[in-house]
């Protein structure tokens, strides 16, 4: 199902917990990294592998916003929309990216490069507004800096 290294990683995670099912969160991350999103097959496979019901896996996947059950772009542009960023004008950033890439929130560009998302607090309130691109944070973002970031990734 996964590459041998990732399978090994899952085994490693399982060994960290008293019961197998506790390894579901890291396992889902591995699935997402490997396939870009959590596929139907991933849900079924992990349910079997971790002694869970498919419904329980589905519940976890849909509960956490960092997992996706739909294909995602190569780069996830996640704009924080919680209160500090909101006051600092995150709406403008979202709008700017939306106009620039021609996609709405939760949509992916036709070339499969970018996905635009609004997320809740990323914990960088002192440096609001903040944009997360995959695992990198960009603080005190402005429309101009957004352009730079996107151009670099293109």
């Amino acid at each position, binding site marked *: 199902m996964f590459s041998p290294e990732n399978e090994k990683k899952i085994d490693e995670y399982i060994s960290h*917990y*008293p019961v197998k099912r506790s390894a579901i969160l890291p396992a889902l991350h591995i699935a997402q990294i490997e396939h870009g999103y959590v596929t*139907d097959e991933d849900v079924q496979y992990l349910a079997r592998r971790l002694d869970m019901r498919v*419904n329980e*896996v*589905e519940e976890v996947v*849909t509960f956490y916003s960092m997992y996706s059950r739909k294909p995602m772009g190569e780069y996830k542009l996640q704009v924080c929309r919680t209160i500090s960023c909101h006051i600092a004008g995150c709406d403008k950033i979202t709008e700017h990216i939306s106009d620039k890439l021609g996609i709405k929130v939760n949509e992916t560009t036709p070339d499969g490069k970018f996905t635009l998302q609004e997320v809740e607090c990323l914990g960088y309130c002192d440096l609001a507004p903040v944009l997360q691109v995959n695992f990198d944070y960009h603080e005190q973002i402005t429309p101009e800096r957004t352009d730079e970031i996107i151009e670099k990734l293109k």
Partner: protein
Amino acid sequence: MELVKITINGQEFEAPKGELLIEAAEMAGIYLPRFCHYRGLTAQASCRLCVVRVDNPKIPKLQTACTMPVSDGMIVTTDSEEIETVRASMIEFLLSNHPVDCPVCDRAGECELQDQTYGFGEDAIRSQYKDKETQLERQISPFIYNDPQRCVVCKRCTRVCEEWMDEFAITTINRGSHTYIGSYNGWVECSDCGNCVDVCPTGTLLHVPYKYVARPWDLKQTPTICNFCSDGCSMLAGSRSEKLVRSVARDGRGRTAGGINPDFLCALGRYTIDAVHHEDRIDRPMIRRGEHLVPTTWDDALSYIAKRLGEVKAQHGGNSIGVISAARLLNEDQFTLKKFAAEVLETKNADFYHDEDEIDLASFFKNGSPTIATQKHIQSADTILLIGSDPNEENPLTAFSVRWAVRRKSARLLMVNSVASRLERQAEIAVRVRPGSENALIAALLDENLTNEAADVMGTLAENLKAVRQIVLESEKVVVVFGDELRGAALEALPLLESVLATPDPEAAAAARKAYLDAQQRLAQSTQSTAKPAINENPYSNITPQPTLEVGDEPVRSATKFSYLPLMRYSNSLGAFQMGMDALQTDGMIAQAMLVGGGQAIKALYIAGEDVVGKAEEPKGMKHLLSRLDFLVVQDMFMTQTARQAHVILPTTSFAESQGTQTNNGSQVQLVRRAIPPVGQARPDWMITASIAKMMGKDFGYQGAVKNAFKAIAETVPGYGGLTHNRLANEGAILVEMPSVDVSQLNRKDVMDRLNAEIARVNRHAIVNLGELRDKAGSRLHKRYPLITRYSNILPLHPTNGKEELAKVVMFPA
């Protein structure tokens, strides 16, 4: 029960210690609003409607009454302005995401959201979510319709699915205001119990067959007893315009039938009621003219039967006539048939139809009745020994009780079975054995020296049997639940367990129990990655007092160490047996022998309610046997294959159209009430039989009233003395005491010899089934109840492989 004093709103009340505040307040007459709290489910505390203020400096915030156990001297306020404001705003939040489409919602009228809003909410909503949850309504199973917009996310349905049914078929998807009830692929694969729909406080989950059929206030709801398996659940039969439209364990207003099943019902009780109005119902008597069956009047049909039966009796003697009843017929029907056979036909051939898959009642009751267990006994047992059968499929209420005992009361479940069962998930020891070798377990329990041989016969390890024996030995109260697999001498030997496996030392038993609970706790807390998940999902039950299934319940423990629950196949098998519709008691021919003897020893048959052709392994052969009879009377609800062979067909009422009593596997009599008038010209079985008897010159004195038939039962049948329909209506299920077993009469050596002989006959080449549970719930259901499910429009449409074969739902607008 230990009581504590609590003060609610300045008034002092007494409440059972450890009871939840929300229930204690309700007992005191103070209703606290709630969505997520539900008796019998674990605490959720997500709706925050039941908040109260507890007068204690250590608890500065409002508390949820559904999670707070009462303690002595507790002072509680439930109706201050502060609390009212909080409740009103909680409801306002819920309504801000609710479509308020009550005029087209089936739940309107018995909707808890309506009631709570009316009682505790404000009359206006100030806000609406910008991005309202827009999951569209859809059907998610053949029986469940889901409209996520109406959901208040109380999670009662998912908890019912997990805790009561152990299905995990529905779950919550997403989070926050986007949460909705769904499943992995949007389709629910389950045993279709429908309990999730019953507990839903809003119109989110709805019964598909009941969709747009009636408004709750138009329904006439009659508490009655389910007619399918032998557990005997109570249900509310809802009828509209004299048509049965739904059956529920509990309606939206919290009304229940108040039976032995706390708000529990399975697919059979809930979704086969449409068979009552099936087009194949026979609506008038019919008589054979050559090849054809032509409609006739009751008078003609009955006098013809009286004449013909009289002729056969005069010509060949009474014993040439056989009477066969279906085990689902009510006590009054069985009793009247037996009386008719014995006093009018003067035949000893009267038997209720049963196959090998019925419990061997004759052996079980041979030396008197062992202590019979009821559902309550299971729910408060220390150890449950399940031998054979799969209650999860065949007696769902028993499975529910077992699960409850294990999950909430830390009971130990031991299973010895030849088929896969989902209950194995709850078992401490689950031993799979060769089909037909279950008897050997009784031998191993009775005689330790036989363990090795028994293990060999059963195709399992001796250690497994030793472990089972050891746990049974050290337990204080053991409920033995068994299926048809135990037969003959093994059943006769059961009463011997009491002395052989008596707990050597009560203190040791208590110590063993404590050791088990501690071990469970350690297992739950352990950090060893090799540990398997705890069987008992509430390992702290020896610390925290657990609320009982129903408020004020006391544990029900038998006087003896062992009590037994035979899982009979049909709703009234035990009743039929007690009424004497059992040929072995009169040394007559059993039903199978009567059928085989058709045309030879038996010249005429009177078959009440049984489709012997449909149930036969070779229907053609059975048809031929029936065709050799001089005279065949069939009284049935449906035009079955058997009925087509008859000389006279009499239409009978279904359980919903007649009043009577029914005895379940726990030997409890319950009252079956009439929910709708008879369909067509149908008449109750007891009335038909009594009419024929009258025409043949014997008046049973019923005067057309079922109460008089039951009076006759109370006068003659042991254990039924003093019972009346009125008493049953008022008191619910009443235990019938049968003469208890006299172990001293039991010839131990003889029984053991026969048991050993039986074990020697077991086919040792049979393969032990170690496979997973493969059959889908519905398919086994059909095999089990072919007649009923065949006549139900809904159940046979159960999809076997996914969405394609979706049952057709009449949608509005069409």
